[in-house]
């Protein structure tokens, strides 16, 4: 019998070694940097905060008394150029992507602490990032949040000392949980959702009535409403399942049983296409 040639293992081994060492090589090229900028409260009467963040993790929360802001950015200096600028009353934070191919941008992190004393006009725009936005203890006067393919948690754990003039939430393809919206002290809320799994939790201490419009594309929308709150839901759209537990339908509009007698009321105008809407009554502060 003729011997079959023995295949050399050298080439596959070299290829395997190269493959295994490639990520380490890429990481070694990264120029990891961190920058922290903080500022104490001066004469600011309102702080405009604009955050544009395209990668990694975003953590926003309350800072110490007397602090205006503290921003800490961890980023790959080879891939991104940081933007951390302050002009009186206005803070811009973000990263511009320059060269991201072959880099692990998910390692980046932006931590932003905002002070509790100055009212804030907050504008957050972030892309492929995980975000944990905790507005507890902050004085939010306006809130605009736009998020893309990400996992976002918005939390308001205590009543907002300011009247929030507008809340504008734009959510792309994402998992989005907004907890404690009742604490925002907002008269109006606009939600625009693309594709995803969205939870809007309206628990909290309600200081006034709220009117909300919800525009949802494809996906599931869960509305968590505190018992005792008056709820009115007007629903439109195409191929949408609506689980209307605890609601009574009058004409084309759904009402909670206590609608007439409730101290605080939430009016929801929902337009959705292809998906499911679920109303959950939960225990939680209402007023």
């Amino acid at each position: 019998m003729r011997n079959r040639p023995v295949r050399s293992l050298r080439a596959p081994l070299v290829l395997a070694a190269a493959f295994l060492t490639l990520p380490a090589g890429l990481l070694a090229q990264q120029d990891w940097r961190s920058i922290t900028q903080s500022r104490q409260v001066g004469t600011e009467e309102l702080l405009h905060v604009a955050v544009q963040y395209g990668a990694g993790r975003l953590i926003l929360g309350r800072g110490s008394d007397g602090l205006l802001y503290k921003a800490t950015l961890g980023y790959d200096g080879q891939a991104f150029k940081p933007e951390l600028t302050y002009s009186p009353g206005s803070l811009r934070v973000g990263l511009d992507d320059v060269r991201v191919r072959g880099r692990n941008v998910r390692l980046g992190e932006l931590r932003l602490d905002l002070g509790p004393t100055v009212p804030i006009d907050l504008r957050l725009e972030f892309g492929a990032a995980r975000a944990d936005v905790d507005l507890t203890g902050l004085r939010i006067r306006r809130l605009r949040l736009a998020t893309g393919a990400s996992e976002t948690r918005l939390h308001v754990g205590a009543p907002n000392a300011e009247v929030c003039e507008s809340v504008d939430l734009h959510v792309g393809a994402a998992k989005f949980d907004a907890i404690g919206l009742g604490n925002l002290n907002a008269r109006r809320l606009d939600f625009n959702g693309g594709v995803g799994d969205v939870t809007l939790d309206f628990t909290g201490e309600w200081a006034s009535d709220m009117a909300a419009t919800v525009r949802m594309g494809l996906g599931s929308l869960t509305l968590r409403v505190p018992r005792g709150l008056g709820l009115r839901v007007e629903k439109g759209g195409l191929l949408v399942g609506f689980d209307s537990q605890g609601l009574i339908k009058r004409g084309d509009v759904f009402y909670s049983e206590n609608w007439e007698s409730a101290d605080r009321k939430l009016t929801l105008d929902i337009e959705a296409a292809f998906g499911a809407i679920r109303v959950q009554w939960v225990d939680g502060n209402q007023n």
Partner: protein
Amino acid sequence: MWRPLPLAVAAVGLLSLPALAQTAAVAAQTAQEEPAQAQAQPGVERRIVSSEIAVSRGEARIVLEFEGGRRALFAIHSGAAFAGDDRLGDAPRGGELDRAWRELLGEAMDVSSDELPRLLASWQAPGDAEIGRRLQATLDGAVSSTLADPALAAGTAANAAQADAVQSEVEFDSVERLLERVQRLRAQVRDLEELRDIPVHVAVEADRGGWAERGPLRHLFRGLSGIVSIALAYGVVFALAFVTIFFGGRRYIEAVADTARVATTRSLLVGMAASFLVIPAFILGTIALLISIVGILALPVWALLFPIAVGLATVLGYIGVAHGLGESLAERRFYSTDWFQRGNSYYFLISGIGLLLAPFVAMHVVRMAGPWLGFFAGILGAVGVIVTWAALSIGLGAVLLSRAGTRPMRRTPSDVEPEIYAEPTGA
């Protein structure tokens, strides 16, 4: 930005002429931040209103902004320690001073602004190196007046004063150093003059669109718009198929689908040949009609109907292939009642067209993640193009082989292997 020469520097400078000369040289440079020791004004109530700390492989720096707008910078970079624009001395990367400095800045990142002055003031430079002591002293000088603790403030002020005294004695303030600096500046001027003749092209960046085009979500919007366009294409193809079936064209579609499934390779080869020959055939037909008297009359009809016929055949072929693909998928997935519920042409078309367009959808989904997955998006796009081209070619071939669905090629019973439902008994 020019600033007045601080009094403290002037006082130190009076102690020795070289020191004054050195300070004057520093001031003559385009110093943005003042030397930190110059800002120490004991007894004046100040606070740090802003701090910026940056740490990277090549640099570790802190910039302090005091009430009233004055700023102080301390840094170690390029193998040296700096206070403002003053080079205090060598501090090699990875050395004892560099490590201690980075450790301090690391801690400073985590403390609140209130605690920052105390942290900076309590820092002790490692070892006995002169550079470390000078950095520590200048830092102390900058923050001493912001400290609430009088004892600590007095200590740091004393450190700063000691540093000033030391500074007046060391080579840092020597005339040689001043001359060396002048030489360096002259060299820089020469370098800049050489650069003067290099042509510089300035391009004005055009408006790149709105927020959706420039923001961090632009990839998402592009991906979503791509998916929407694919969804539109899906809708158009399905609408054409729906209309065809609704108006009695189901058997033609099924015939083309059967032909494509039974004679896939033949259909592909015939379709490829037809796509290559369609233009020559059109030209030859036109010439043939031109050279005959009757043909000239038929020429407009030919010129109009031939492209329409080719277009219809292509569309019918694509729909037929999608139908066949959906049917094939359904045969693998469904059993008994499922099959009865979903074994219809509409379902086959929904799934079949979806399968044919799936690579494009996947490409746009991957694109949403950003440019770093562009390679995979490109591969998926190429797969989509190849699948589409194959479907069009096979479909066109199947339409021709089945004479537009009137003579389908179907499996004969002898082509199908018998299925055995009973276990052999062994009898």
